[in-house]
C-alpha cells in the first residue's frame, strides 16, 4: 500500500493504452498467494467463488435427492430409516433453497451486475467479501451437522411446535435456525451492495430505461430480500429464544401461538420464491436478445412485471396456510392475490414469445434452456394457479402435487435459466467457451429427465401420497409411479453430470473466447474475457439501451480518472449523471476476521445466551479494524 498521498496524481488522460492498463492493473490487482486471496475484494473473484460454492451445494443437495429417490423407489424400503430420511429431506430443501438457489442468483449478480453497469467494482466490496465468508460458514455448519448426525429434521420451514423446545430435542432445530441467520446475513449484505451499486454506480448516461432487464430484476430482488428476510430473522431468533431462554412466542399454553410461526415464515417464504425466480426471469429477458437477435419486446412491460411481482409477493403468504384453519372465506382473498401473479408472469412469457416471434432465433444451448424454461415454467405456474384455489388446495396441499409444482417452478423456472446463463456467461467469466455438443446433450437429458421425474408426481399427489414420508405401504397404489419417477431421475442426474463435466472440462481446455462471442448488446461484453481486475480501462458512456449494438462508430468512454487510486464514477439516481470520482476500498483481511468472529458468536449462541454479550466484543474489534482509515489514496477527498 502506498503511504504517501501527496505525490502527483496520475490520470488516465495522459497515458498510452498499454501504460494505462499496466497502472490500473497495479492499483486494482489481487496479488497471488493465499493471504491475498483471502483479503481480496474484487467482485469477480468473490462472485466466482460464490457461484462455485453454490454449485457445490447443488451437487450435494442433488445427491440427497438421489438418496430419497432410491428410498422411495419401492414400498417399505429399508435403505434409510425415518430419522435419517427426515434429516435428508430437510437438508435437501434447506440446502437447495438457502445454500443454492438464493445465493447462486446473488452470486451471478455479484459477478455480472458491476460489469453490466460499466463500473469497476461492486459498492461496499469488503461487505461483499464478508458476505461470502458468512455464507460459507453457514453452509459448512449445516453440512457438518449432517455429517455428525445432528442435522435439522423438521422440514425446510421448521414448523413449531415440532421445532420448538418441547418436541425438537437436541440442537437440530437450533442449527436450522442459526443456518438461517448466516444465510440471511449474507443475502442481506449482498442486497444492500446491489441496491447501492445499481442506484449509484451506473455508467454515465445509463438512465433508468437503459438498465439491462437482468439488472432490474436484481434490483427488485434485492428489495425483496431487504423487506422479506427480516421476517425470517425475527422468526428464527424468536425460535432460538423459545428454545434457549424459555420465551413463549410459540407456546399456546402461555399466550403464544403456533400459527404465528407460519405467518412469519411465509411472509418471508413466499417472497423467497420470487427472490429465486425473478433473477432467473431477468436472465431470460437479457439472454433472449442475442439469441433472438432482436431487442427484447416490451422493455417497459418486462420491468413493470418484475416490479408488480415483487409488490404482489408480499400479499400472498397465506396461500401456504389454506388448511391451517384460518377463516376459509378470508382465505379467498389470498386466492385472488395469488392468481393475480399470473398476470405479470404472463406478461413476461408473452413478451419473450413475441421477441422470438419477431427475431431470428439462433439455437445455441442458452436458447435451448430458455425454451425448456418456457415450456416447464408455464406448467409450474399453472399448477401454482391450481393450488392457489382454496378448495383445490385442500386436496393437494402437503402432497406430491405440491412437490411437483415447486420443482417445476424451481428447476424449470429458475435452474433452467441459470444453466442457460452459465453457458452464456461462461466465456466472460473464464475466457473459454463451453462445449456446444455436451451442452446440447445435457440440455436434452435434463429436460426430458426432469419432466419424466416430476410430471408423474402430480398424479401421485392426487392419488393421495403425502409428502415427507420416508416410506409407504405396498397396498398403496403408488409404487409403480414412484419406481418410474426414481428411474427417470437417473436421466436427470446424468444430464447434470454432463453439465458439470462440461463446465469443468471447458474451464480447462475449452476453445478460447472473444470479448463478445454471442454478439450481445450489454456492457459486460465490451471488456476482455475474462475481464481485467479493473473491469474497464476507460469507463463506458451510455446513450442507448443496447450499447454494443448501437456503437458502430466505437464505444463512447470517459476519461479523467486517476490510476493511482481505485477510482470509479458515482452517478445520479435517475439520469446517471456523473457526481463524483469515488474511491473503492482496497483489499483487506478484516472482513474475514469479522466473519470468523461473527461465526464464533453465532454458533456459540446456540448453546448460551451470553455468547451474544461476549461474542460481540471480538466482532466490534474486527469491525473497527475494517473501517479505521489507513492513509491511502482511497481515503482522500
Amino acid at each position, binding site marked *: 500500500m502506498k503511504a504517501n498521498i501527496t505525490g502527483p496524481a496520475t490520470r488516465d488522460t495522459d497515458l498510452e493504452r498499454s501504460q494505462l492498463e499496466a497502472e490500473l492493473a497495479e492499483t486494482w490487482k489481487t496479488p497471488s498467494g493465499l493471504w491475498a486471496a483471502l483479503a481480496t475484494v474484487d467482485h469477480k473473484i468473490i462472485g466466482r467463488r460464490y457461484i462455485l460454492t453454490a454449485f457445490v451445494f447443488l451437487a450435494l443437495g442433488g445427491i440427497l435427492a438421489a438418496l430419497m429417490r432410491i428410498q422411495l423407489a419401492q414400498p417399505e424400503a429399508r435403505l434409510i430409516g425415518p430419522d435419517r430420511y427426515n434429516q435428508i429431506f430437510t437438508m435437501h430443501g434447506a440446502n437447495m433453497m438457502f445454500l443454492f438457489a438464493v445465493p447462486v442468483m446473488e452470486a451471478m449478480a455479484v459477478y455480472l451486475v458491476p460489469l453490466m453497469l460499466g463500473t469497476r467494482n461492486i459498492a461496499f466490496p469488503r461487505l461483499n467479501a464478508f458476505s461470502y465468508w458468512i455464507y460459507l460458514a453457514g453452509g459448512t455448519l449445516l453440512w457438518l451437522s449432517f455429517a455428525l448426525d445432528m442435522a435439522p429434521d423438521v422440514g425446510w420451514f421448521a414448523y413449531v411446535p415440532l421445532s420448538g423446545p418441547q418436541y425438537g430435542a437436541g440442537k437440530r432445530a437450533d442449527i436450522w435456525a442459526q443456518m438461517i441467520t448466516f444465510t440471511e446475513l449474507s443475502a442481506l449484505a449482498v442486497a444492500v451492495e446491489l441496491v447501492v451499486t445499481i442506484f449509484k454506480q451506473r455508467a454515465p448516461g445509463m438512465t433508468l430505461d437503459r438498465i439491462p432487464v437482468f439488472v432490474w430484476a436484481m434490483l427488485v430482488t434485492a428489495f425483496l430480500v431487504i423487506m422479506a428476510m427480516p421476517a425470517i430473522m425475527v422468526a428464527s431468533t424468536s425460535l432460538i429464544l423459545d428454545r434457549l431462554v424459555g420465551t413463549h412466542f410459540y407456546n399456546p399454553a402461555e399466550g403464544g401461538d403456533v400459527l404465528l410461526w407460519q405467518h412469519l415464515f411465509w411472509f418471508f417464504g413466499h417472497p423467497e420464491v420470487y427472490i429465486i425466480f425473478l433473477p432467473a426471469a431477468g436472465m431470460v429477458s437479457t439472454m433472449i436478445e442475442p439469441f433472438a437477435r432482436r431487442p427484447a419486446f416490451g422493455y417497459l412491460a418486462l420491468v413493470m412485471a418484475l416490479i408488480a411481482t415483487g409488490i404482489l409477493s408480499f400479499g400472498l403468504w397465506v396461500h401456504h396456510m389454506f388448511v391451517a384453519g384460518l377463516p376459509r372465506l378470508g382465505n379467498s382473498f389470498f386466492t385472488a392475490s395469488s392468481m*393475480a401473479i399470473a398476470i405479470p408472469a404472463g406478461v413476461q412469457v408473452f413478451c419473450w414469445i*413475441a421477441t422470438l416471434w419477431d427475431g431470428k432465433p439462433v439455437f445455441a444451448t442458452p436458447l435451448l434452456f430458455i425454451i425448456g424454461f418456457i415450456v416447464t415454467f408455464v406448467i409450474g405456474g399453472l399448477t401454482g394457479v391450481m393450488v392457489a384455489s382454496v378448495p383445490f388446495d385442500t386436496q393437494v396441499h402437503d402432497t406430491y402435487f405440491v412437490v411437483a409444482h415447486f420443482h417445476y417452478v424451481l428447476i424449470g423456472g429458475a435452474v433452467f435459466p441459470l444453466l442457460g446463463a452459465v453457458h452464456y456467461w461462461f466465456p466472460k467469466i473464464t475466457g473459454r467457451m463451453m462445449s456446444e455438443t455436451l451442452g446440447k446433450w445435457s440440455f436434452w437429458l435434463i429436460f426430458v429427465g426432469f419432466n419424466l421425474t416430476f410430471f408423474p408426481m402430480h398424479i401421485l399427489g392426487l392419488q393421495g401420497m403425502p409428502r415427507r*414420508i420416508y416410506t409407504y405401504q405396498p397396498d*398403496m397404489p403408488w409404487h409403480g409411479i414412484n419406481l418410474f419417477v426414481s428411474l427417470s431421475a437417473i436421466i436427470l442426474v446424468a444430464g447434470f453430470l454432463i453439465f458439470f463435466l462440461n463446465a469443468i472440462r471447458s474451464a480447462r481446455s475449452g476453445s478460447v473466447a472473444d470479448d463478445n462471442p454471442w454478439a450481445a448488446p450489454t456492457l459486460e461484453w465490451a471488456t476482455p474475457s475474462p475481464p481485467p481486475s479493473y473491469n474497464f480501462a476507460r469507463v463506458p458512456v451510455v446513450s442507448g439501451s443496447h450499447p454494443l449494438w448501437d456503437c458502430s462508430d466505437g464505444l463512447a468512454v470517459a476519461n479523467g480518472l486517476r490510476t493511482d487510486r481505485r477510482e470509479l464514477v458515482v452517478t445520479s439516481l435517475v439520469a446517471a449523471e456523473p457526481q463524483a470520482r469515488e474511491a473503492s476500498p482496497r483489499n483487506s483481511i478484516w472482513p474475514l476476521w469479522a466473519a470468523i468472529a461473527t461465526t464464533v458468536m453465532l454458533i456459540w449462541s446456540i448453546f448460551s445466551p451470553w455468547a451474544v454479550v461476549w461474542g460481540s466484543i471480538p466482532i466490534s474489534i474486527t469491525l473497527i479494524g475494517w473501517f479505521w482509515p489507513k492513509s491511502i489514496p482511497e481515503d482522500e477527498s
Partner: protein
Amino acid sequence: MRRATRLAWVVTPAVLLAGCDGWQSALDAHGTSAVSLKQLIILIVAVCSVVWMLVMIALIMALWRNRRERPLPVTPQPSTQRRMTATVIAAVAATTVVISGFTIMSFFATRALGIGGNDELTIKVRGLQWWWSVEYFGARSEERFETANEIHIPVGRNVRFKLEGLDVIHSFWVPSLAGKQDLVPGRANELIIRAEKPGIYRGQCAEFCGMQHAHMAFLVIAESPDEFDKWINAQRQPAVQPSEEELAGGQRTFLEKPCAACHTVRGTAASGTTGPDLTHVGSRKYIAAGLFETTRGSLAAWIADPQTIKPGNNMPMVPLTPEELRAVSAYLASLK
C-alpha cells in the same frame, strides 16, 4: 361442461390413468365434498391444459417462423411492434378472464364446503405423535367413549369433526371423502364430511409431524345407519371379561405391567391415556395407525418390539416372557 370434461380426458391422459384406484385418492371420490372437489379439479386442470397448449403453439410458431441466420440484430418495425403489442394485450386480457373465473369458482366452492346440516353427528379427533384418538358423544355422558385410528360414520349424514392437535401439528385427510384440515395445538378446527357410499376409506396425516409421520394412517368406515348404530352400541360397552384361563392371564399381565399406565381398557383398572384406548382393539381393522392388520400374531409382534416396527413411536418395549406375550396378545385380540 361435458365438453370440458372430455377435453380433460384427452389432454391429460395421466388423470385418466389415475381415475380408478385405491382407497385413498382424491380422484376416487365418494364423499359429497370430495366429489365436488374432483369436478373442480378436473375443470381447472382442463382449462389450464388448454392454456398451456395455446402458449406452446405460440412458442413453436415463434421459433418456426424465422429460422434463417442473420448476423445483425433485427431492428423492430413500428407496424410489427404495434401488432405484437395488441396481441400481448389480448393475451393478458384473456389471462385476466381465466383467473377471475377460477377465483370466483373457488370462492363458491369454498363456501359450499363449509355448510353442515342439522342432523349432524359430532366426533372429536385428536392427533398425537403418531396415532389418532377418536371420541364419540351421546345424549348422556356415559355414552361417551374413546377409540383410536378407526372412525365409523353413517352414510348420507353430515359428520362434524372437531379437530385438536395435542402435541404438534397434524393434518386430517381422507381424500376420497373430503379435503384436508390441520389439527393445530391451541386452536379448534373443524371439518364436515358426508360419505355418499358405504366403504372403507383410508386417511393419512398430511402435515409432517416428526419421526413416524409416514405411519399415521387411519380408516373411516362409512356404513348404513343400522350398521353404524350397531357398531356404536357395541363400542359403548365396556370390554368383555375374559372367560378362558389364558385370556384372564393376559389381562392380569396387562394390568400388572406398565401397559395399564398408558392404555385404557374400560371395565378394568387400566385407565392410562398416553396410548390408544384398547377397550375394543380386537374389533379394529388395523393396529398402530395403519401399520398391520389386527391379528393375534401382529399384536404379539407389536408388543414384543414396537421400536423396531415403528421406530421412534411413543410406546416403549416392555419386557415380557414368551408366555406373557402370548397371553397378552390373545387377550387384546379377544377385545372385540
